[in-house]
């Protein structure tokens, strides 16, 4: 029900560090991570995790070799006059301290530069463009057509077609954020006054969680988003739906809810396309009900959470900019009913 869990009961033992650690905490280790570097679903992320394992093993060998050398050296003291002579010492330092590291480092730098070049290359021509705006503390997602015009606008959820490269153009509405979906790609900072972009291709359908990775104020911790990779046809259908304006509700209670939305201040920050609500400080709510979560992947999008979030956002996400709204009970009920019609 909740957001996430791309149900990898992933094999924890496959992670080197994890396996070392699981000796210590085998009883408590759970495996339901949804934001891990270890389960890449794009070429970029796969290249990086490959690099990690290469570095990990080389590093482990170096560490053990140094410790072994130190241990043997100390052990030798049991025999008299076993200290290293001048030339032996010099050879040791030159070989182990200069020559070997130099070779390893050059290999690492070379490999890392090659991988970096391929990742930083321009995206292929059939790329789909999405513009993501970082706000304190949520993500605005705009789908762009060929001319850079906005087709559809949503928040904290990026749907992408499987197998198609997606370029994410990043701009900031306020401070520095960092766009990061570990299973798809490394971070790219969202810089005020500067257009950064990154691209990836999700090779597998699924829900991948991302999170802001640059400290951005009080609620930096709860500024996540979801990348939902789905088949091209599903994606098309979804995008079409998102591009459409909201329908006028038929249910009288929902109509009352729309009135509440327009009269009680919601509309000054939020947009619902197809109505008079054109605020642009908070997320576009035109298709709110189609989203899985609220408050940047903090709570599931259910009626209970929605009502509580509207009534008092601060007890869910302290310090958030959305104000408390004191509504009559029937207004609150109608408002939630209305918002649930925004599919």
């Amino acid at each position, binding site marked *: 029900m909740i*957001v996430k869990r791309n149900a990898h009961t992933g094999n924890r033992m496959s*992670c080197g*560090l*994890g396996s*070392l*650690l699981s000796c*210590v905490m085998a009883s*408590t280790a*759970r*495996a*339901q*991570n*949804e*934001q891990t*570097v*270890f389960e890449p679903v794009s070429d970029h992320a796969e290249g*990086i995790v490959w*690099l*990690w394992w290469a*570095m990990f093993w080389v*590093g482990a060998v170096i560490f053990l070799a140094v410790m072994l050398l*130190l241990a043997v050296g*100390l052990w030798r003291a049991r025999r008299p006059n*076993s200290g*290293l002579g*001048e030339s*032996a*010492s*010099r050879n040791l*330092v030159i070989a*182990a*301290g200069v020559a070997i*590291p130099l070779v390893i*480092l050059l290999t690492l*730098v070379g490999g*890392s530069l090659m991988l*970096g070049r391929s*990742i930083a290359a321009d995206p292929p021509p059939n790329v789909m463009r999405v513009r993501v705006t970082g706000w304190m503390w949520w993500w605005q997602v705009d789908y762009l057509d060929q001319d850079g015009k906005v087709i559809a606008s949503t928040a904290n959820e990026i749907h992408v077609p499987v197998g198609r490269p997606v370029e994410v153009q990043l701009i900031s509405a306020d*401070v520095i954020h*960092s766009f990061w979906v*570990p299973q798809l790609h*490394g*971070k*790219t900072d969202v*810089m*005020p*006054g*500067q257009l*950064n972009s990154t691209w990836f291709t999700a090779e597998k359908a699924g829900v991948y969680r991302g*999170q*802001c*990775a*640059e*400290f951005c*104020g009080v*609620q930096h*911790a709860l500024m996540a988003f979801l990348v939902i990779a789905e088949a091209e046809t599903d994606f098309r259908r979804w995008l079409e739906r998102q591009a459409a304006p909201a329908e006028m509700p038929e249910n009288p209670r929902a109509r009352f809810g729309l009135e509440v939305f327009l009269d009680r201040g919601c509309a000054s920050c939020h947009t619902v396309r197809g109505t008079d609500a054109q605020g642009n400080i908070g997320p576009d709510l035109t298709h709110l009900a189609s989203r899985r979560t609220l408050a940047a*992947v*903090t709570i599931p999008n259910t009626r209970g959470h929605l009502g509580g979030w509207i009534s008092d956002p601060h007890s869910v996400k*302290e310090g958030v900019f959305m104000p408390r709204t004191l509504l009559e009970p029937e207004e609150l009920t109608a408002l939630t009913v209305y918002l649930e019609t925004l599919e």
Partner: protein
Amino acid sequence: MTEACFDDSPQATELLAKTWQSPPGFFGWFTHVNQRKIGLRFIVTSLIFFALAGVLALLMRLQLSQPEINLISPDLYNELFTMHGLTMMFFFAIPAMEGLGIYLVPLMLGTRDMAFPRLNAFGYYVYLIAGIVLYISLFVGAAPGVGWFSYVPLADDFFTPGKGPSVWTTMITFIELSALTAAVELIVTILRQRAPGMSLNRMPLFVWAILVMSFMIVFAMPAVIVGSVLLYLDRTFQTLFFVPGGGGDPLLWQHLFWFFGHPEVYIILVPALGVVSTIITTFTGRQVFGYTALVLSLVAIGFVSFGLWVHHMFTTGLPQLGLSFFTAASAMVAIPSGIQIFCWIASLWGRQIRFAMPMLFILGFFAIFVIGGLTGVMVASVPFDTQVHDTYFVVAHFHYVLIGGAVLPFFAALYYWYPKVVGRLMSERVGRWSFALIFIGINLTFFPMHQLGLEGMPRRVYTYLNDMGWGDYNFFITFSAFLLAFGFFLTFYNAVVSYRTGDPAGSNPWNADTLEWATDSPPANYNHRHIPVVSSRSPMWDVARTGERPVVGGLRADRREILLTTVLDAEPQAAQVMPSPSPWPFFLAVAVAFGFVGVMYIPLLFVWAFFVSFLMIVGWLWPRRPWQKE
């Protein structure tokens, strides 16, 4: 030479002690200028800040021990991690290393005080006041909560109104003053006051490390001072240096900050490397292998560290080509580090080693520091860094480097020089427990953080959702953090208890080779009864071997005189009369502090503080009558 230039009588010794005595009493305390007093103050104060920052860390760990708990509000949590970083970097690590330098360098060089004793005292008061103001700000709810790196635009007054980042800008500039005065002071002392015969290539490695550190401070710190002045102006006068809409650029801040911030890490590390060489020399009973190589690698680390700053900015969207250079440079800094490690291993190989406490901490240093260095090389790779940047992987990495590379050697130094400072040895039994807990605690606390980072946990988050599956790791880490803290506490306890009950140390308990062991423990007011004359890198061992102790004669005992020697070869050149105890440095520090704190509220106070400080400086430097006496 005649008898006249050499008076070893008890009367002369007493006179000398009286000349160099610090005034007693509460008010006297504010006039002390002797380098040992000031150095000890630096060390003790820095340890207090270390403990405070540790408590903040434990509070943060409690908040993170379980998902989605509300022990600490997000605002307060942000203040805690900011203060933890600021305290550890600016109020513990640098002052601790400087304190070691200030206390030990003149003793090691065989001189009686630092070059500018009053400036020294001033630096301490500045440090103390800055720390007190910072912690007061935490308790009145005005502490900076924007990270120790204080990135703009978050730290601009638009996004963070209130006094927090202003405290950051003014107090950082203020504490840098202290670091800079100490650095200049150490450089001049090292270059000009070495005992006759202690040419540069006979200088102890620890002194070399302090020299390199001081030069790095001089070149690195101005960048952050400029940065924080610009940020202060942005916040107070609405200038636009970092405001994108007005033509400013937030990236400029990052360049300024990291141009200082990266060398900062090595500023902390380099003196620790000096400590390692010193202790290995002493406990193997012979000169460490590769003196020249070690010195050159220290210098190389110092230089290269100024070319690495962009590796903190790999994800900011800079051009790929530029990043490659910084990848290469960052990886290459491993070479001088590697040279040092293997010089030490060569020195230890097959030697009879006394495994006393300092040596144990050094062995711990090897394991922890090598791990930190290896992950450091990993994060130099741009693609990999984009995944782990700003995650717990990096938190793990730099705690391994800083605790392994600086704190463990610093604790080794505490055990090693404690008998010199106090006259008694610290307890080995408590020390071993402390070391074991610290060593295990570090690994249990920080090793799992690598895994957490790779599983996606970002830094600087006050909580995380239950669904993320990070709860168990974090619980375990919190538990281990308390273990680690207890380990540190044991050494504190050890130091306090041994002050009264430790075994008497004698002047040279470890049979070490450097000059600080030539004098009593604790050293007399005048450091060395006679300024020694040196003819090798191991003067103490020379004395033991030859039974001869060559010294300088002719310095007067009735006033504070020191000997100046030439920069390269330490040939005696002139004598200098040192200033006497004085309250002016304290007054000046208070005046300057008043200005720094005041400008947060009333910018025009700058003008007032400027002139009052000037008056204080004149009072400080104004010659006392009668002049003819000289």
